[in-house]
Each structure stands twice: as C-alpha cells, then as structure tokens.
C-alpha cells in the first residue's frame, strides 16, 4: 500500500504567490507523480477569492485538479492563529477521516490555525505529523520576521518583555500565554523541518527539542532551459531584483543605492525590478518606491537606470533572468531561505545579498557571491560598483556557483522523515 500523505499549505501558489506555498506545491507535484506515495494537497484560501467560497462548503476541490483541495478559511484570528468557525473544524475532521492519511505535513499554519495540529493528533492518533517552519511566526507575533518594531533591528530572541516592547499595547504576560498556546499544539508534531540551518538555532533557543528539528532545504524544479555560457567577456553591469515589492524585501534599499551611484557620477549600469504586491508595503516605503519609479519614467530613456517589469510567472523567469548579470537580494530581515537565490543559481547568476540569515548562510561571500551590510544603501552601492568594474569578478563567482536545490532531492529528504516511524518499528 502506498503511504498516504496529506500536505497542508497556507495558500495555493496559483492564487497567491509566496515561498511557502510554492515549495509545498513543488513537493506535492513531485510526490503526486511518485507511484510509491499517494499524495493530497489541502491549501487554504482566504476571502480575497470570495467566488471560491461555495455556499455551505468549508472544504472543496480546486479547479478540477486531482487530489488538490481548498480549505475555505474564515473568521481567522491572526493573533492566536485559530479559526473561530466550528463547522470549519468539523469539515476538517471529516476530511481527515475521509483521506485517512499516514502522514500530515503542515507547510505553515497561517489561515489554517495552529490548533489544527492538535485536531490531527486527536482524530488520527497514530498519524505522523511533520511541520515545516517557513519563518518565525510561532516565535514572533510581528509577522514572524523577528525584526524589532522599534528600530527595525534584527531580533535574536523572544521574551515576554521584549515582545511587549514591540507591542506596547499588550502586556508581557500575554506573550507567555502566546508561547504556551503554540507549544501546547506543537508538542504533537513528530518532526519539524527548517529550510535553513540558522533557523534551527532560533527554534531550539525558543524551546523546540533539537532532536525533533531537521534541516531540509527547499527544492524546486527547473523553470527553464539552463543558461548557455558563451564565455564571452562583456560588461557585467546589469542587476536584477526578483520578489515582493514590500519593506522586508528591501527593494527601496536598491533604489537608494542607485541614487547614490548616480550622485557619484557612476551611471553605467541597469537595474531590472521584477515583482508585485507593492500594496503590502508600508505607506512610507510604497511612496518611496512609487515616487522613484515615476521620476525614473520621466527621464529620457537613455538616462534611465531602473526598469520596472512588473510581476512574472515562473515560466517567464528564464527570460527575465537572461536580462541580468547579477541577482540582488537586499532583504532587511532574516530572509529564511530565499528561493530567488536558488533561481539565480538555476540561471547562472551570482547573487549580491544582505549579510544575514538565510542569505548569508547560502551565499558564500567572495566565493560564489557578494555580501553587503543589511539595510546599508551605501554598502550596496559600493558592491554594485565593484561588480560592474572589477575585471574577472563575475567570472570567478559564476564558476563557483553551487547547483540549485532540486525538488526531487527535497522530496527524498521528506520521504525519509515520513518513513522514520516505520524504520523505528522495524
């Protein structure tokens, strides 16, 4: 009998782009094609798609796709991360009993509810439960970023008083209870995984037993033909940004660096911005980006350094990547994994990134990429200028690029975790 695996995803990448759901769907596609497993996907959707909320339904299929289902999330409490609708839980229980999976693998819990973990344990006592952390939301109420709201500095640990400093309207005691609430549900998880190693230390410090948490890198399929390296010697002065246009991703740091370079008289470079969701940016950052882009558009074409290309589908990625030499990842938070780093490697582009978190862990400074001080536009400007002008730098870093993490390797890693219980029994 093939093992039955239920993957539970916060959102469906077809409906809302985001790293966690992309990775979960990659895993689903890989396992779904594997005859040795029977895989199902349950992805949440919120009221941004009201037409998908069929009358009286709580869980439905999705667009005629085999074994893909939607969890119609409603009445969601974003502080405690729970749904408030009993019928939704009743439907989830019925769904579990119908599928009767051997493994339930949560990719995130937002819009689903952390208490669904307890529901799974209660309904299917012998089921193996895996949970992949895609950021720090269990630890940190500030969007799971572990960035202090007071000064935007990176936060190294959550305590009741430190969290109260980020949320002065909430007393320290509330954060003790918040942690107990999460821990109580997470105790039912058999295995946790993180896509980056540095995350493990944060979760272990927070209280997750080290022996229960493992590093499994996010894997992807190839999104286009591999790059053809002509070996030509050319200017390497084209930079690309790929991702969400909101504060944490740091696109505004790129724009500031561009201005600094221009002010210094250096203009022989270009920056392509690829992405969307600017509505998720703070009003200040949104205004900064929009004002910059409007001013850029007003310049004569040959004086423009920055080009905004809008959003893209994964199938378009190889053409977007073909237009750049370097991939910029200027995130101003820990950046858990950075799928865009994998995508840059997929298309042979060295990465220039902030020197923290998942970025620093994955990109080796001066070996296969370049680091700059997180949030420092001057430092980024200096690195960009060096990237444009230093002979042989691009070639050296390009030739040392690692292979991108493949999804079949990721699937094998997870299958090993799914089967651990069987091995223990054997």
């Amino acid at each position, binding site marked *: 009998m093939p093992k039955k695996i239920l993957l539970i995803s916060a959102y469906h990448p077809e409906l809302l782009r985001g790293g966690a759901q992309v990775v979960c769907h990659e895993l689903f596609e890989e396992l779904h094609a594997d005859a040795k497993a029977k895989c199902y996907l349950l992805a949440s959707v919120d009221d941004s798609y009201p037409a998908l909320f069929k009358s009286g339904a709580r869980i439905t299929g999705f667009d005629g796709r085999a074994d893909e289902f939607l969890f119609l999330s409603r009445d969601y409490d974003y502080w405690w991360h729970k749904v408030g609708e009993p019928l939704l839980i009743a439907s989830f229980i019925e769904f579990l009993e119908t599928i009767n999976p051997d493994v339930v693998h949560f990719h995130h819990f937002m819009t689903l509810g952390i208490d669904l973990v307890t529901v799974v344990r209660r309904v299917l006592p012998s089921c193996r439960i895996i949970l992949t952390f895609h950021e720090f939301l269990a630890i940190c109420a500030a969007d799971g970023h572990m960035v202090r709201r007071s000064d935007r500095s990176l936060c190294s640990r959550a305590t009741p008083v430190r969290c109260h400093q980020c949320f002065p309207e909430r007393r320290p*005691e509330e954060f003790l209870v918040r942690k107990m609430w999460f821990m109580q549900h997470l105790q039912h998880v058999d295995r946790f995984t993180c896509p980056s190693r540095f995350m493990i230390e944060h979760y272990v410090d927070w209280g997750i037993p080290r022996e229960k948490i493992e590093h499994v890198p996010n894997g992807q399929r190839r999104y286009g033909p591999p790059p053809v390296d002509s070996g030509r010697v050319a200017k390497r002065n084209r930079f690309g940004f790929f991702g969400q246009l909101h504060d944490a991703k740091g696109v505004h740091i790129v724009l500031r660096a561009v201005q600094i370079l221009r002010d210094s008289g250096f203009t022989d470079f270009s920056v392509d911005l690829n992405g969307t969701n600017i509505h998720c940016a703070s009003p200040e950052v949104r205004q900064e980006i929009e004002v910059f882009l409007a001013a850029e558009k007003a310049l004569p074409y040959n004086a423009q350094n920055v080009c905004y290309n809008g959003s893209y589908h994964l199938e378009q990625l190889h053409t977007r990547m073909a237009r750049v030499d370097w991939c910029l990842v200027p995130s101003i938070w820990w950046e858990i994994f950075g799928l865009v780093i994998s995508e840059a490697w997929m298309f042979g582009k060295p990465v220039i990134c902030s020197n923290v978190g998942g970025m620093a862990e994955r990109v080796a400074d001066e070996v296969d990429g370049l680091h700059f001080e997180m949030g420092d536009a001057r430092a980024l400007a200096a690195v960009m200028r060096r990237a444009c002008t230093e002979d042989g730098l691009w070639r050296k870093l390009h030739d040392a690029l690692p292979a991108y993490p493949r999804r079949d390797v990721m699937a094998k890693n997870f299958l090993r975790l799914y089967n651990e219980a069987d091995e223990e029994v054997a």
Partner: protein
Amino acid sequence: MPDDIDPHLAETLAQASGASSGNGDQQIDPQFDEAAYLRAFPDVAIAVERGDMASGLFHYALCGRVERRLQMPAYLSARAGNGTQPAHESVGARVPRFSIDVAIASESGAVFIVGWADDRQDPLVTISVASGHGRPHTWTRFPRLRRPDVETVVQSTEPCNHGFWVFCNDDTAPLRTDLAPADTECLVELRFESGVTGEARQPLLREGNGQLRDTVMGYFSAIGYHGNRTVEAFTSLDLGAGDALIRFNRALSDSIAAGAATERFGPNRKHFTGSIIVPLFGISEFFFLQSCLYSQGKGIADYEFIYVINSPELIELIQREARLAEMIYGLSQTLVMLPDNLGFGAANNVAARYARSDRLLCVNPDVFPRVSDWAQRHSDLLNSMPAEQTRFFGTSLYYDDGSLMHGGMYFDMDTGLHVTRENITRHVMLRVEHYGKGAPAWADQFVASRRVPAVTGAFISIARDWFEKLGGFTQDYIFGHYEDADLCLKSLAEGAPVWVHDIPMWHLEGKGAKRLPPHEGGSLLNRWLFSRNWQSLIVPELIGQLPGHRLLREAVEIGNEVDPVTEAPLPVFAAKVSRRAAAKRPALMRVR
C-alpha cells in the same frame, strides 16, 4: 479654567464650536443650551458672572466639548428641567444654596441622588425624596464628600464637604422589573439645622437595576474627600449606604442567578474527580486558552470544567468556542450563562450547583498550569494526604517572569482617623497580603505545604461538602475581592484552617477580567465589609505573617532552626526549607 482670554478668541471659539450663543444664529450643536449649561455647572456660571468667561458657550467651545460636559448627568438633568427655577432659589432666601445634580431611579424603585449644599452656616440634616411610585425615603445620615467645583463657586477657603449622595431601594427580593416608567420627576427636600427647607423638583432618570448598581459603584470609586480617602469612604458606608447597596446587590444577584441557563459540551460522565469552576468576565480569549492549556495533561480526563459567563455579550462567542473545544480537545465543559454580571462569589456558588464531583476547584480565567501533569498531581494529593490537609487548600502561583506571585495569604491592617467637629474616630481597615510576593522561584519556604490564614480565590480546591457547609462564598461582596479571604475565615471559624500545597500555576493577576470604575468601587466597599465582618477575629490574632491564632500557631511556631543570614529563629514553615535555600535568600525575602 484659563485666565486672560482674548475676547476675539471667544468669538472664534464660539464659531468653531458650531454652537450659537442664543442670538439668533443657527444652532448647529442642538445639544447645547446656555441656560442649562450655566445651571448645571456653577463654576462656569460664576466665571461668566465675574466676566472671566464671555458665556457658557465660550466655555463649552474652549474646554467643555472636550470634557464631554453635555453628556454629564448634571447637564442632562439641568436641560431636562429647563424652564423651572433653579433649585436653590425655590424657597426663601435664608435657605443655603444647594443643587441636586442627578436623580436616578431603577426599574425596581431604587433611587440614587447626588447633589451639594453650601451648609457651612446651617448644616444639612435631612434629605427626603418622594416620587409617584415606591415609598418616600428620608435620610438623616448620609455620606458627605468633597466638591472642588462647588468650593470654587461658593468661594470656600476652608476644607468643607459640600457634596452628598444617597441611595435606597425598597428591599424587595427578587427585584421587580415591571414598574412602569410613570414618573419623570421626583421631589427632593433638604432640611437644614435651622429648620428651613429647600425643595427641588428633579427630573428622574431611569436605569436598569444592574446599570444603577454600576452607576453607583462607579461614582463611589471616584469620590474625592478631605482626609484619608479609604477612611472617609468607610465612614460613608457606615452611614447606611453600604448596607443598602449590599441588600440591593444581593437582590440583584438573586434575580440574575434565577435567569441562569446551562449547556453541556464534550464527554458526559456521571461523576468526575473534580469540577473546575471558572467565572468569565468580559474577556473571551481565556476560554480557549484554558481549554488548550488544561486539556492535554495527564489525568485531566477525570475533571470537568464549568464556565460561568458573567458577560451576556460573550455568550454566543463562548458557545462557539465550546463547540470548537469539544472537537479539538475533547473536554467536558458546562457553560452557565447569566443575563448579567453576578460577581465572583455568587458566580462560583451558582456553578457549584452544576458540579458532578465531590471536589470543587475555583479557578480564575487567567490561571494556567505550570506543569502539564497538574491534574494528576492534584488527584494524587487528594488520595495521599490526610483529609484535614486537603479539605480546603490553595496553591503556589507564579508571575510570567518566573518569580513567585504568592504562596498563601495573611492579613494586615491600616488605621486611619475620621475627624468631625464633634470628635475623632479611629478606623481599622483590613487588607490581604501575600506570602513571598515577587520571591525568586527557588525560595521554596513560601510554597511548602503548610497551614495559612487564607488562600487566593484565583485557585481554590475545596471539598464540596465543606464548601456547602460553609454556605459557599458570601454573596454580600459586590463584583469581586475579599470573598476568598472571607471563605477561608469562615473555614477557620469552623475549626479548619486552609492549607497551601505546591501545584505550581501561572497567574496573570488582574488580567482575567476587564476592570472598570464600578469594580473599583466594589473593591472599596468589599474591603469595608470585610473589615467590619472579620475585624474581631483577625485583630490581633491573625495579623501579620506569623499570626498567633491557635489553629495556625503550629504552622508558625518558632523552631530550633535559625536563619543562616540573620541568625533569627525561623518559623517552622520557613525552617522546613533546606539550609542551602535559606542561605541564598536575599535580605528582602527574609521571613521575620
């Protein structure tokens, strides 16, 4: 009130306010009435009379709007009575100046009146009120209070309590709710020592019984006095107001309790090891948090939960959460739904009726287990310890920072003086203190099993038959505070002191309920009641950390051990801790 106002500013402000000064301009703010405003606020009237203010409208535009004066009872009352003569001018010129700020009647006929009189020369001796329904009431003893606004108006230079308030109800139980709102006004008569009287026909505002209780208690919490606030508040209550409020609240509680409805969720058993009773006040989140955090420990299946919902607006939400908890946690939960706030003691008493066990655990909504197997520990304790030690006990409670909140309670007292023209009286005001408050977690002398004068209602474990023998919580206390200590003293008076055993719990003290001004007023009244009821037992035998009461003496008997830091003899309970732990205690934590 600001000085040196630019006259041009007045006009500007008046225009900005959108109100008129009665000169024919369109009145944009329909609530403003110049005459009523001046009548309601004597401080403004005087300022206008002196020329400090251009008009009442000017004052309103300048600060009255921000102060929400048009919503104040004095204004509403003055406006409702617009067109009648000001009260203080209704009877002869020799009558001292006075005013009735507000008169409120409840649906059952309870009456609450607030006013003031400048009776420095001719003391006010009697207040009478009559309306079309209910009995007329007369008070010869009534609370006096400080009124800074009146002091300004009458230009009083010496401390003087111009204000007064009275409260009465018809002592009918249960409270009637069917009285027709026939009366729109009442007649208030003030008689002064010289024999002169003043009358005021006062608009009678209407409130529900619960509303009126909250109004009175909220008002009581905010009163200012000359002298010690607590002493003066106690003195006020001694004058009959305290007993009247207690009787009214008891009748109200009976009415609320009679309206209780219940619904059970989760596994249904005939008998449990314990019934965990949790009264909820205003905050729903604690329901699902407790459901989660209590549900998964060893031995919890032997316990049922009884939640008393004192906030009717939460009923629908809690019902939904109970359906969720049934599916997610599988707990046995009973909801006792009340049409109004019954208060802590009465809520626990009502819940006890629905218990399906011989053991009641009264637990606050903001108390959470610090160890996952707490239920098993509790059951083991009941099975392994002598009955006298488990009949009634509390436990150790901890702050979120890990320090000890307390391990048992003891009593202390404050004293204060009440000064009148005739004499000076001494008042004893009891208070409850906590053993080891803020102590480091390693200071285990505070959590050692021992007898203590009292334990907190945040966590009480009590044999049901003993609870019933004691008559449950005394329901005279309003809202909450002191009824836990009261229950412990009832037990002590019956010969069974309470114990503390160490089943560590987190307690987010004071965060389990929304705390509003009426609750502060209730706390003050409860302290008065507690002091009156228990002073003779507590003083002096139960005062301090080492009380000399015969039933507690063993617990605090001086033993052979000495404190390694101070070399002072240690009481038995402190001597039980190891020398290492005692040596580590900082000076602040020493038990003396």
